[in-house]
């Protein structure tokens, strides 16, 4: 047994974080640790290498490749980290030192543990980089992190983690910040490391589909305990554990919608030939060529229709959304809401238009002023009201809207930090709904939520659109979300819309090569489980 953790219990300030966690892993296998945020999955992985936060106390047995790490001191851990256990973190942007070349950073990992000359370590570094798919021929060791893409940075991080040929590799949400196509490449790299080099890999992730496609073993965590552990196939096909079942169900959750096929042919929102270009850097010889984030995009949204705008990071979907919302000025093209020009020069018109088109942003933590109470936050959009509302009227509206999104009136006097991520996203929806809009744009509005919460929010959105006849413009990188909630889908790449069509049609028979690639790369729970029968 490469890794054997038994009855690991961790307390931070007398608060139980892990309760008697046991994990086993053999050489050449991938163990997926799955669970929602706060379930203790990251803590379990970090406890193995002694990277628990300050003030944490742990008990239990930890054995890695024969080393007893349960009572190890920092010196022992320093020898184990890197040499016996490699670690890859979630955020490839901050995991690398921006002022050192990648060759030097990879080489440094060896020089800490082995007494090698500069040239020897450089040679090993280039081998390690070649192994992760960055051959020195086409990929210079002298490059700096800022010139690499997210996927390339994660490869460099993996090269650093694996250069000393550790028996165990711990990867904490390694692909969460990456696009689906990049994610697929990184996951297949993990698979190769396990199959070819016999590395045991712990893959910590919230995404069950990733585990279904990549891992051999899975441990489902909830509230600091392992609810269930075993073979991926066994557990994902027929578990009897209620929590695992719920998790699987929520991952593949399809909100119930009464689809109205008779959309009016009058668009509520229409964008024509939008262009948003960012100016290039200024040099002595004038401005160099700019960057077209949005390149001649036209789209329309009809009443009662849900539109999905999907694409990978950097494709321009967020810029397009900002331009449509009038938060960014396009260089060319125009936006019309109910046939009226938007943004409008008239203040009165503008307020009417803003009431009609509202937005829910991505980050449930950053979207509220931390110093405002919920009642103020939710009623902020009432600034757009035709006639100013009295205090009592405002309060009535706030109470009614909180009720609509499944929160209670007593929440109105609380501050946003008192709410969970899912509740905050409900608050954000309440804020958008209070002006009775016809269109709500949702910028990755459910992407950062846990699956169970995501399922409830999707239900809420579906219910609201049925009841109030709101159209949604879903901007997301997550195809599985777009699939279940939208009627029509637009695929964006390099600032242009490359494919457009009914959601089912695009998913079942994508016509553009890029859409096909995107769909193939997206991990799918059911298919992954079925495929290996």
């Amino acid at each position, binding site marked *: 047994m490469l890794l054997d953790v038994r009855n690991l219990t961790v307390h931070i*300030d007398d*608060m139980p974080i892990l309760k008697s966690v046991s994990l086993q892993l053999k050489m050449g296998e991938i163990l997926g640790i799955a669970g929602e945020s706060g379930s203790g999955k990251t803590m379990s992985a970090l406890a193995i290498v002694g990277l628990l936060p300050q*003030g944490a106390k742990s008990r239990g047995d930890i054995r890695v490749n024969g080393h007893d790490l349960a009572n190890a001191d920092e010196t022992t851990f320093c020898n184990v980290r890197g040499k016996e256990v490699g670690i890859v973190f979630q955020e490839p942007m901050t995991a690398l030192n921006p002022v050192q070349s990648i060759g030097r950073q990879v080489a440094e990992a060896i020089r800490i543990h082995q007494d090698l000359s500069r040239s020897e370590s450089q040679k090993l570094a280039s081998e390690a980089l070649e192994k992760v798919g960055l051959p020195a021929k086409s990929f210079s060791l002298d490059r700096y992190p800022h010139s690499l893409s997210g996927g390339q940075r994660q490869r460099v991080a993996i090269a650093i983690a694996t250069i000393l040929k550790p028996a165990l590799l711990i990867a904490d949400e390694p692909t969460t910040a990456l696009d689906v196509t990049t994610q697929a490449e990184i996951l297949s790299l993990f698979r190769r490391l396990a199959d070819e080099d016999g590395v045991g890999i712990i893959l910590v992730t919230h995404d069950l589909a990733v585990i279904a496609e990549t891992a051999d073993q899975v441990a489902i965590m909830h509230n600091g305990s392992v609810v269930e552990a075993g073979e991926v196939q066994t557990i994902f096909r027929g578990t009897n554990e209620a929590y695992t079942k719920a998790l699987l169900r929520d991952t593949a959750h399809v909100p119930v919608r009464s689809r109205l096929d008779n959309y009016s042919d009058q668009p509520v929102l229409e964008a024509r030939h939008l262009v948003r270009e960012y100016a290039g850097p200024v040099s002595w010889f004038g401005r160099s060529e700019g960057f077209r984030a949005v390149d001649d995009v036209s789209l329309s949204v009809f009443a009662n229709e849900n539109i999905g705008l999907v694409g990978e990071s950097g494709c321009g979907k967020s810029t397009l959304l900002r331009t449509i919302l009038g938060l960014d000025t396009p260089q060319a093209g125009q936006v019309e809401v109910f046939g009226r020009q938007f943004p409008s020069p008239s203040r009165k018109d503008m307020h009417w238009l803003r009431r009609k088109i509202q937005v829910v*942003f991505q980050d449930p*933590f*950053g979207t509220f*002023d931390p110093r405002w109470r919920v009642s103020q936050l939710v009623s*902020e*959009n009432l600034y757009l009201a035709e006639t100013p509302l009295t205090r009592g009227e405002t309060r009535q509206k706030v109470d009614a809207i909180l009720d609509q999104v499944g929160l209670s009136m007593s929440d109105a006097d609380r501050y946003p930090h008192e709410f969970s991520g899912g509740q905050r996203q409900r608050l954000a929806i309440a*804020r958008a709904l209070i002006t009775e809009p016809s269109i709500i744009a949702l910028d990755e509005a459910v992407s950062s939520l846990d699956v169970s919460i995501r399922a409830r929010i999707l239900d809420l959105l579906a219910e609201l659109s049925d009841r109030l006849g709101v159209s949604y413009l879903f901007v997301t990188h997550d195809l599985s979300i777009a699939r279940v909630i939208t009627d029509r889908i637009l695929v964006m790449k390099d600032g242009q819309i490359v494919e457009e069509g009914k959601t089912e049609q695009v998913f079942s028979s994508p016509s553009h090569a890029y859409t096909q690639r995107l769909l193939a790369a997206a991990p799918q729970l059911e298919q992954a489980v079925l495929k290996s029968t």
Partner: protein
Amino acid sequence: MMTVRGMPNVAGARCRFPRRLVVGLTIVTLIIVTALLSFVWTPFDVSAIDVGGKLLPPSAGHLLGTDHFGRDTLSMVMVGARSALAVALVAVIIGAGIGVPLGLVAAARRGWVSQFIMRGNDLIFAFPALLMAVMIAAIHGPGAVNAMIAIGLFNIPVFARVARGGALTIWSREYILAARVAGKGRMLISVQHVLPNIAGLLIVQVAIQLALAVVAEAGLSYVGLGVQPPSPSWGRMLAEAQTMIGFAPSLAIFPGLAIMILVFGFGLIGDGLNDHLNPRLRKER
């Protein structure tokens, strides 16, 4: 990472005011009380000249001794606290009152408005406060009011920069976007969302600038550009003690100590507030 932010703040549960803040507040409060007390009572009349009892060392009668006119040093230090506090306070109010709005505007309106404000600030920054005071004194004559204006002017760019820097990070938050979607203009957003969220930053800066302003006031008085005689001031007491430092060192020591203690007090408040208001530092304490 979501999980970390979602976790209850473990450090916050036993969060108290930092000791530095408490000590600083105590020092400054004591000096303010002393200054207020000097309006109704001082051990001796500060303008009472007693040639017979000049240059006395500290004793039971004159706790801190007397100067070359026989005036009681303790009384003078007490009254001197008034001008030190008043000049520092008014100067910082001038600086923050003009600088913060300028910084907010510079952050809200990028482009030439921002450039104009910030380059104007650089211009003021380039002049030392002393030089500015000399210029103002040359035109309007020396005095406490002109010292306040000179130090206040010097404070404007400091506050403008701090406010702009803090405001720029707030402007990148999503709740600013949400406020813009609510149809609010840049100025309204600056007042409703930006200012409250940089208030902590500004309060810390106020404490630091108060400390600097006390030193600046003493400096101006030292060269004769601050409070005019016969009202006592710490800076001028130091200047007058200079020639007698060989045989009456206590004349220089006590006003010097007074300046030091007040600056130290404001400095501790600034440091303590920074620790208290900055959650990242708070965790490490």
